[in-house]
């Protein structure tokens, strides 16, 4: 299992990792590092190379090389018929993408951020998610909607919303949230190959983060299963679930807890829908305590669903009330100090875990 080693020196890596991955097999001794950005870029490249039906569309994906440089080099390699710059009209181009998927193509639709997907949500839900069902299997929609989701840094209320629970509540959609470069590569490839509509929630602040990747991950056939969570760190005292950027925070919290004698098991959900209930429940049956972590708003959130699942299936195993750490219940403020209060921090996760282990008493006891 790979530990997560982050080296800041590589974070601004300008090295381009070539998508022809078999060349890496020769360098087996040292672990290769890859940023999430490179992971996504290489996954897109390989899937476009493997299947001519796959194409990419979105704002600035072509000539600008991608607003966050995720699609760098793809226009040059695949041409304007497969990498399409769209006008700033999400409802229009998303509908066009879904229509192309109806016909059998495999579009990858990029939202510059998922906040803008709200302009197109009717097509994601009503035109994509429900079609296979309504047509009794005739109209399948092999489309991927991808882009950065959730909070960034100082971008304010309209640009910081997390849509994980919004999309994950809808049957017919699959919703993925990668954390590491391995996740980014394996899950994006799985999403593109999957015959159903997939909402792929990236994170802007993770794009530049570097993770080690094995030769297996670098291979062009690498794929991760949809619907399976990953146990990033094994533990026995408390289960911490997280996805996307919060996985890194949960791992940091686990380090702090370890120093205080608490062994935390960190689960990287990877898949929000389907949610890996068996893995989560098996973990809670082992540890008897649960802390859910997410950046999005708490009410009706991902953590709420996880808590419900655990209470329904593993009630007898719980030794403490379930704990939820989430974004603050307010629109995202701009001021740096308020923003810090509005987004979960490592100390919040550690504190909640300690409460679950009855090591501390909540301040605002009701």
């Amino acid at each position, binding site marked *: 299992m790979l530990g997560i080693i982050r080296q800041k020196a590589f974070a601004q890596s300008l090295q381009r990792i070539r998508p022809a991955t078999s060349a890496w097999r020769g360098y087996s001794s040292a672990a290769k590092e890859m940023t999430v950005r490179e992971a996504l870029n290489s996954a897109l490249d390989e899937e476009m190379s493997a299947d001519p039906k796959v194409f990419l569309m979105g*704002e*600035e994906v072509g*000539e*600008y090389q991608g*607003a966050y440089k995720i699609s760098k080099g793809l226009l040059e390699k695949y041409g304007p018929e497969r990498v399409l*710059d769209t*006008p*700033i*009209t999400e*409802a*229009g181009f998303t509908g066009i993408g879904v229509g192309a998927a109806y016909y059998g193509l495999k579009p990858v639709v990029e939202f510059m951020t998922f*906040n*803008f997907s*709200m*302009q197109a949500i009717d097509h994601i839900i009503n035109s994509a998610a429900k079609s296979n069902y309504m047509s009794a299997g005739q109209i399948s929609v092999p489309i991927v909607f991808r882009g950065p989701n959730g909070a*960034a*840094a*100082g*971008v*304010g*209320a*309209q*640009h910081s919303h997390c849509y994980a629970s919004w999309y994950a509540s809808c049957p017919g959609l699959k919703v993925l949230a990668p954390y590491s470069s391995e996740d980014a590569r394996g899950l994006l490839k799985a999403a593109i190959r999957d015959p159903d509509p997939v909402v792929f929630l990236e994170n802007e602040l993770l794009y530049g983060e570097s993770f080690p990747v094995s030769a297996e991950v670098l291979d062009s056939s690498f794929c991760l299963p949809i619907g399976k969570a990953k146990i990033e760190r094994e533990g026995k005292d408390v289960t911490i679930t997280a996805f996307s950027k919060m996985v890194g925070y949960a791992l940091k919290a686990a380090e702090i807890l370890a120093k205080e004698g608490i062994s935390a098991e960190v689960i990287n959900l990877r898949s929000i829908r389907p949610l890996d209930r068996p893995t989560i429940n098996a973990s809670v049956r082992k540890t008897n305590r649960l802390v859910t972590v997410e950046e999005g708003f*708490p009410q009706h959130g991902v953590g709420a669903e996880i808590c419900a699942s655990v209470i329904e299936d593993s009630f007898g195993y719980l030794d403490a009330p379930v*704990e*939820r*750490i*989430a*974004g*603050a*219940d*307010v*629109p995202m*403020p*701009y*001021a*740096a*100090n*308020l923003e810090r*209060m*509005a*987004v*979960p*921090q490592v100390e*919040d996760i550690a*504190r*909640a875990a300690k*409460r679950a282990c009855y090591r501390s008493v*909540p*301040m*605002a*006891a009701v």
Partner: protein
Amino acid sequence: MALAHLTSSSRSNLLKPLATVLSYTDSFRRPISTSTDPLTIETSVPFTSHKCEPPSRSVETTPQELISFFRDMATMRRMEIAADSLYKAKLIRGFCHLYDGQEAVAVGMEAAITKKDCIITAYRDHCTFVGRGGTLLEVFSELMGRQAGCSNGKGGSMHFYRKDAGFYGGHGIVGAQVPLGCGLAFAQKYSKGETVTFALYGDGAANQGQLFEALNISALWDLPVILICENNHYGMGTAEWRASKSPAYYKRGDYVPGLKVDGMDALAVKQACKFAKEHVLRNGPIILEMDTYRYHGHSMSDPGSTYRTRDEISGVRQERDPIERIRKVILAHDLATEKELKDFEKEIRKEVDQAIAQAKESPMPEPSELFANVYVKGLGTEAFGADRKEVRAVLP
């Protein structure tokens, strides 16, 4: 006029015929012209119209107005350039979309309307806010996330508002402000004031479906809304011809009349806005396309040079800069000397620096501000921080 200045109030008409001889002589230094005597100036280019008769190229103005145009635009220019430095110094975070080059639109529009008319725009809103009476202190404080900011530090660059002066923001989602603007106009008509709304959007937003939906309704219901397309020819990194099948934005209203305006000429903008206001109060919506240009990239994360050439940018700066145009008009009509205008610019630089220094003194918001203004009427519900058992508040 939006900004306070230090001009003296004496009249200088008597000296006008001698001005040419005397202007170079320090000993005969006359006060800068604050005359409100009418002056007629031709716009740089005539207006092009769609389904209406264009207004005349001859714009009525006064020396006082021209001087105020100069000061206001120079202030906006200096403010945006200062914001660039503050962003690079990491005192401004997140997004920062600068307006330098486009000042004539904000200033010309203000000259044609009152504070009872409404303005709504997208995220490139710093100068529009100042045009509506916003202060430099409020701008810099908001950009730096401080209490003295116009949104108490909670909105940031894209979310400036000044409702009592008819400025409704400051919107981050491309195109959303247009139906909102039509809604303001609906309310104005409903309330029977003789006021209008200006809804500004860019060439990138011009293709948004919601714009056409709102325009259709506005035309059906004769709403007093003026859609202003600030066409700076690039929607982020995409040139207008790559995004729009028809980049003749003033014609895109189809059944709605339109006017194409030189957006780098504050007098042309004023004339067009005056014409538009009169038009919509009688006839329903109109579209004004302002042909303008932004010197900066789309935002501070965009160098602005990967999709356009440096020659193009410097060419516009040389040929069409709005401040230089007004400077030339002022000098040609002898309303001030070159030195006087340069002195204005020095004063403005000082004002901006002072505002920044003051803004830096303003504290960050109090933690309790996190939970303020979620609702008008909170009904006693609880709101939670990231750790719901540690941080919670009752919303009043």
